[in-house]
């Protein structure tokens, strides 16, 4: 037996050996990036439920030789000229564990299941009590279209620019579904940018809020919201689902699941289902979604200038969405004779409930007796519907 030859073969085939082949250093860089993301998720608690999964998926996919994810299989899946175009057979036969889990992302199943959980956890009461705040949810989609324009200028294609723009909707599942449908090759970068900036909202928004509002505006105390009846809460998801899906059928997966989850919560007769949607289902899907999205960050495809552009444009999208919400908030402050605190406008960027908490925090700094949280929840949940409509529009315009 050739002991030396066997040892040499083992060394060459090991993952360590693969770091020294051409381009192998990129994997080392990505492993460092994955460890940084793990640090941000675990120590800094940046959206840990998803970021830890994404980071670990990125770590696993960039361990040379592990073979858990095969981007070339997905290239064939997406290539109309390929014999296996839109066929899962080669992926099931030759794919690794993360390829199999990624089917749930590719088929658009995970983001929609997460939306059932989000719906089951969302109280639309503040929005029903004060429907005017719907407008703030629409205004805060400004960053989506601003970043779309910026991405076009930077040379991204229409579908790529649309996927980058939707980061400004500050809604992870919406961003993932839109990108999966329009520009799947950018999924890893867009998901990481979206979730990282969502976690950074308490740092990104307050300076913009202070810049665009006066101390008098920030001090405004809003009147208590009216009580919303149970019947109104039950009818709301049914009406929204019917109306929005008829208006823009491409929103059906997102709005349909969001409103289904909310109906489970509000009916009062499906408590077990609501509990599963909020907890078990949400946790299981979050686990699969995070690790499989992270798996798409394969070093040779992720480490390029395009990723840097996406990270930059994502930040611009978040900032301008905040600006859009605040400006319409200021307009409502003027039109209402000073009864609406413009700070609730920034909560229109979705990111439930983080953005609403930031409105509360900034408002309370100016006036410690001010409680804006419930008022900010209205635009906050309206932002979820607004970003779904924005995504539906972009999918309609740029989808195949």
């Amino acid at each position, binding site marked *: 037996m050739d002991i030396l030859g066997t040892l040499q073969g083992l060394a060459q085939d090991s993952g360590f050996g693969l770091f020294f082949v051409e381009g192998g250093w990129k994997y080392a860089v990505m492993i460092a990036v994955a460890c940084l993301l793990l640090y941000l998720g675990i120590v800094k608690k940046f959206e840990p439920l998803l970021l830890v999964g994404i980071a670990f998926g990125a770590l696993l996919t960039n361990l040379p030789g592990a073979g858990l994810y095969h981007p070339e299989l997905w290239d064939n899946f997406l290539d109309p000229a390929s014999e296996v175009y839109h066929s899962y057979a080669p992926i099931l036969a030759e794919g690794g564990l993360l390829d199999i889990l990624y089917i749930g992302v590719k088929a658009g199943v995970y983001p929609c299941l997460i939306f059932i959980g989000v719906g089951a956890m969302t109280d639309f009461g503040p929005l029903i009590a004060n429907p005017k705040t719907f407008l703030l949810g629409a205004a805060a989609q400004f960053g*989506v279209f601003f970043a779309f324009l910026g991405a076009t200028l930077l040379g991204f294609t229409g579908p790529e620019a649309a996927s980058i723009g939707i980061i400004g909707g500050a809604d992870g599942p919406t961003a993932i579904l839109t990108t999966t449908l329009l520009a799947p090759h950018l999924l890893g970068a867009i998901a990481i940018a979206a979730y990282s900036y969502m976690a950074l909202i308490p740092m990104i928004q307050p300076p913009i809020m202070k810049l665009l509002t006066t101390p008098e505006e920030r001090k405004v105390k809003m009147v208590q919201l009216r009580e919303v009846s149970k019947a109104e809460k039950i*009818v709301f998801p049914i009406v929204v689902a019917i109306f929005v899906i008829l208006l823009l059928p491409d929103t059906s997966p997102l709005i349909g699941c969001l409103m289904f989850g909310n109906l489970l919560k509000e009916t009062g007769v499906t408590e077990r289902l609501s509990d599963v949607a909020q907890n078990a289902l949400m946790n299981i899907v979050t686990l699969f979604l995070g690790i499989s999205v992270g798996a798409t960050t394969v070093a040779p495809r992720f480490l390029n200038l395009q990723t840097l552009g996406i990270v930059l444009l994502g930040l611009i999208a978040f900032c301008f969405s905040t600006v859009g919400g605040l400006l319409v908030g200021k307009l409502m402050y003027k039109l209402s004779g000073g009864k609406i605190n413009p700070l609730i406008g920034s909560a229109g960027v979705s990111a439930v409930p983080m953005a609403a908490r930031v409105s509360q925090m900034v408002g309370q700094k100016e006036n410690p007796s001010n409680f804006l949280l419930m008022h900010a929840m209205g635009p906050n949940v309206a932002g979820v519907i607004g970003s779904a409509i924005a995504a539906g529009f972009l999918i309609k*315009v740029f989808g195949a």
Partner: protein
Amino acid sequence: MITPIALAADMQGHLDLGTASVAALMGYLFVFLGIVLLMAVIVITGKIMSSKKVSPAEAPKAAEPQKAVEKKKAPGSAGELKLYDTDPKTAAMLMAIVADKMGKPINELHFKSIKEVK
């Protein structure tokens, strides 16, 4: 379906600035339009439901029993909860402790009265 904006893209799918600006503007306006229409639907639905809930003939009748309930309240009370020799701050603290010990959300518990035992 391939839309006119998607058709305006070149072979690589890039859009010129003019087309991209029109797409962005249209998108933003569409979101506003959708939201405004939805807002109108929700307002109308809310009005229909609230008008069914309290019809004008029933409204005065409903107000009377409420007055009667108000009369029954103990001298120190917070809503329906009657407080005897207990200040609201202490009552709130006791309610929070009970909810914590029972492991139930406070809004699922119904407190009738709190009395200091001397």
